[in-house]
């Protein structure tokens, strides 16, 4: 079975069909070797490949292969139009009773988007739900981190070989994920990350979950594809809206129009999932803010220059700046490009 999976040529669907017709993986292999199925390349690959070498590669990284029937092969995969022949996994095995929700979004999100993703994942973790995502930079990484920081379990699905950390800068993150949770890949060791693999891996993200949350995404993005897979599988799709002027809000807003459930934050998500959980987290304007701090916070609209904030709040610029810096140190305000804005945490009040 492992060998079959490693054949990069035929699509998973045609391999499944072949196995079905021939009755078993070994017979399918025999057919390919005989030249009755598959291509010339496939025959050559089989002839030159040593299964034990592949097994050794897997052992070296602590990975295992899972075929339909194995615990790491989520049964939901078979509901896909194009189920994987098998998957590779590292870390904690998937447990049948797990509740899993996917949180996905843009690789270049806004700072607020990352905050939201992290907070959602945190809320899910506290409620005992696993967060599934793609391990990419941006929203995916923020979601994984949010779950991990709350002591929760998270699952990452890679668009590269099971041993290939892509992107490289997330290597540390993958190690953290593997320690508590699971890393899954459809691709054998050594497969590099290539653009066409990511849409394919998105279907697995959807299939692993009972719902998909879209935080931010541009119009034609991988995030959109993941949402569409979710729809095909009959899963719930949740979306966090953004301002109509933002290119990153196009996918969530479009999905909401098409029927996705609008959520404003963790409280909404948990409610819609029917879960009890700590929705408040650290959100909301904390008590114990001085009058000046409240005034400045209230004066903050969208990104504003310190001088503008001072004008609206009716205080000298130096004072306003001091208050802003103080608020920033408490995580209620963020400085971006010389301007200040409220953080997501400060928004719920």
């Amino acid at each position, binding site marked *: 079975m492992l060998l079959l999976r490693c054949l990069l040529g035929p699509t998973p669907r045609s391999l499944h069909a072949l196995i079905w017709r021939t009755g078993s993986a070994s017979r399918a292999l025999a057919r390919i070797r005989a030249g009755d199925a598959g291509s010339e390349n496939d025959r050559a690959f089989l002839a030159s490949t040593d299964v034990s070498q592949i097994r050794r590669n897997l052992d070296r990284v602590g990975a295992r292969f899972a075929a339909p029937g194995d615990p790491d092969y989520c049964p939901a995969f078979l509901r896909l139009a194009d189920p994987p022949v098998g998957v590779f996994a590292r870390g904690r095995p998937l447990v049948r009773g797990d509740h899993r929700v996917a949180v996905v979004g843009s690789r270049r999100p806004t700072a607020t988007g990352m905050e939201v993703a992290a907070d959602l994942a945190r809320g899910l973790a506290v409620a005992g739900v696993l967060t599934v995502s793609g391990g990419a930079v941006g929203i995916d990484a923020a979601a994984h981190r949010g779950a991990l920081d709350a002591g929760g379990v998270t699952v990452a699905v890679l668009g590269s070989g099971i041993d290939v950390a892509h992107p490289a800068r997330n290597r540390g993150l993958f190690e953290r994920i593997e320690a508590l949770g699971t890393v899954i890949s459809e691709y054998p060791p050594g497969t590099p990350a290539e653009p066409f693999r990511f849409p394919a891996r998105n279907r697995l993200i959807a299939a692993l979950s009972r719902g998909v949350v879209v935080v931010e995404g541009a119009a034609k993005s991988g995030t959109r594809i993941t949402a569409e897979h979710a729809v095909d599988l009959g899963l719930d799709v949740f979306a966090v809206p953004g301002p109509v002027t933002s290119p990153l809000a196009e996918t969530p807003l479009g999905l909401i129009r098409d029927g996705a459930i609008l959520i404003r934050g963790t409280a909404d998500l948990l409610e819609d999932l029917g879960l009890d959980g700590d929705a408040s987290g650290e959100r909301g304007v904390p008590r114990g803010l001085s009058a000046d701090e409240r005034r400045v916070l209230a004066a903050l609209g969208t990104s504003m220059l310190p001088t503008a904030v001072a004008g609206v709040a009716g205080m000298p610029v130096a004072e306003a700046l001091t208050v802003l810096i103080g608020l920033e140190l*408490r995580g209620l305000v963020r400085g971006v490009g010389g301007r200040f804005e409220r953080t997501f945490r400060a928004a719920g009040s």
Partner: protein
Amino acid sequence: MYGRVIGVTVLGVGGHPVTVEAFVGRGLPSLTVTGLPGAAVQDARDRIRPAVEHAELEWPLRRVVVNLAPGNLRKEGAGLDLPIAVSVLVATRQVPPEAAAGHVFFGEVSLKGEVLPTPGVISVAIAAARRGLRGVIVPAVNAVEAAQVDGLAVIGAATIQDVVGFLRGTWRPPAIGPSETGSEPATSADLSEVRGQDEARRALEVAAAGGHNLLMVGSPGAGKTMLARRLPTILPDLTPEEALEATQLHSVAGLLAGRGLLRERPFRAPHHSVSTAGLLGGGSTVLRPGEASLAHRGVLFLDELTEFRRDAIEALRQPLEDGRIVVTRSGGSVSFPARFTLVAAANPCPCGFSGDPQRSCRCRPDQEDRYRQKLSGPLLDRIDLRLTIPRLTKDELLGASAGEPSAVVRDRVIAARDRQRRRYSTLGITCNAHLPGPIARREAQLCPDAERLLGRAVDHMALTGRGFDRVIKVARTVADLAGAARVSEQHVAEALSYRTAFEQDEGLARAG
């Protein structure tokens, strides 16, 4: 037949007196120059004879040997043309030797006998005054430079005939009027021309007051260059010593072109394709000051910092540390002063629009990483003030008031600088930027609130040790501008607000 006069060779910035001896004796007509003459001086051999003959003087049809003493000092530059010619004239008794005594002769000579503008005249005058000589005979165009040095008679000659006439007592040079003593056209740049950008204008004031270097990060068109050009307008005026130093450097580089003492602080903005030698000085024969030295006592502006060559930027560490640049050649080393304020500008990311209110950034994360790498490094560590310059929206620009004029801001800067000078009189430094780390904490005299805020910043902003020192120095300057003896919480908050996305992301990355 023997004659001797005094000339000067300019090495680096300083003038070294050279004794020029001429010996005319028996033998086939020839002219030999001894005493380690450089290439330009060797050329003199072929220049001088036609020049002298053109002036209707006689060139001896004998063997002529000219020696340039001291013999172990390399002589560079064409300024020795004139003394060599005069030494031969003295040797052949065409001019009286007593008249030439006590003067320094300096200048390149053309084939027609004109005395051409030559770089370095002010250094020549300084060297002559130091030697106790009574006068200098220099190219007329450069005479105004020599006039800046007290106690010297300045004779500006346009031709060899003028020189001979002076020595024979038949010609007097025109007086150098006071109006010629270095009046540069006032630049039209003024801080009031910057609309809005209150935070950036304030940062400029802080940089000027404390002598801090400044990095501006912002999208194209945000106004970084405009702001940089206005920094010299709010710096205190050059003191006479500073003016002399800067003028010498410009003179030696041949940039004075008939002007006298520099009145305004230099502003140098080399293009990012500049070579290391162009930035720091060098050259194969004549050692010329580089852009960093030409910015001495002024501002060196590096626009698009990431585009400069890495080795050129690395080499700026020395002047930023010591205030001088040492250039070594096989014949020895020369030190050029280079104490300048560094202003650097950069885009926030390769496409330039990260953090822009209207346009979104198109860069890939790995492009951004590489870009960030280019910005980091030892140079950045020496830049105390980092600032994000936002690109103003239309509304923000229209609503913005005109700022204070440079003169008003400069007064505050001067007052703040005076406070620093008084405070540091025993420490041997003149401004907060030069404070070493450990002393900064002591001198800052932080109020308890300020200490508390700093502590929270260390925790929540992942401030490094160096970052901490930077904030303290800048806060001390903010306090000086307010005339406060102790640094308050507000001063620290303002200092903390001067940062760019790079520090913030660094902090985030460190936090995991």
